[in-house]
């Protein structure tokens, strides 16, 4: 499973000057498609929080963070701040996924589809793995059932490879299971 958004840990600080020999080091965890973008995002956020820019700062470390348990399902809660056509809003969304990167990717695609928000207008404030009891959204809570059981209605039969695809078929498809 390749994800578009990777999670990076970026560490940086302002350059040491005569007045400040050991400036404070700041660390951020953020999502970007690649390392270059992650570094740029880091400076964007740091500029808004401290009086430091990329020109008078230095990057100390950038590491990609990988999912510890990609084989277990978790409920992710994501707090975000996004810009709509009329102003900035905060939002809390929940997703069920195996990895945090997958949950974030779901969030970006859902914001784009439901609210027409492009990915550069979204800032992730906080993410957390939520235990099942504390989930707020019905759409995630409905899967918190150890005896879950549902039929697959409307089974569209697909060709196993795209090479065998044909535009015209002899008979109408059978969609039952």
């Amino acid at each position: 499973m390749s994800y578009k958004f990777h999670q990076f840990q970026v560490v940086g600080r302002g350059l040491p000057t005569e007045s400040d020999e050991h400036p404070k080091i700041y660390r951020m965890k953020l999502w970007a498609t690649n390392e270059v973008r992650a570094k740029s995002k880091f400076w964007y956020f740091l500029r808004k929080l401290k009086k430091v820019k990329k020109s008078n700062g230095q990057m100390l470390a950038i590491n990609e963070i990988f999912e510890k348990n990609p084989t277990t399902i978790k409920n992710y809660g994501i707090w975000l701040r996004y810009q709509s056509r009329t102003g900035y809003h905060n939002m809390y969304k929940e997703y069920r996924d195996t990895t945090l990167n997958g949950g974030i990717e779901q969030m970006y695609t859902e914001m784009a589809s439901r609210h027409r928000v492009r990915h550069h207008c979204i800032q992730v404030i906080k993410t957390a793995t939520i235990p099942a009891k504390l989930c707020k959204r019905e759409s995630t809570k409905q899967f918190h059932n150890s005896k879950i059981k549902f039929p697959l209605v409307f089974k569209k039969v697909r060709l196993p490879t795209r090479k065998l695809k044909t535009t015209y078929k002899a008979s109408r498809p059978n969609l039952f299971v």
Partner: protein
Amino acid sequence: MPFKRYVEVGRIALVNYGKDYGKLVVIVDVIDQNRALVDALDMVRGQMNFKRLTLTDIKIDIKRVPNKKTLIAALDAADVKNKWESSSWGRKLIVQKKRASLNDFDRFKIMLAKIKKAGVVRQELAKLKKETTC
């Protein structure tokens, strides 16, 4: 016509698209409406979209997300492999695979066997015809 095959923990499904095409996997948990956590003997537990799965009639008795050892034990206890290979669907797939892996000599042998079989059938038919006309 109610539904008989449900997505549930322990349902055996056949992968019908993608890298693991043709494999039998167990649905070990449901992520959301479109995806399931799926596990098999020779693969790492991972997620799969329902569009890539075709449900079968076989279901094994496991709890949500068992570890690999318990899964293998449950698969052996339910004798999934034999049940699948003796079912008509499983048998058809085996025959298809065999046919696809024939070389020219095998196809020649099959041609001879078909001719022989047709000859025997035609003899019996001729005998029956003689009995009805006479």
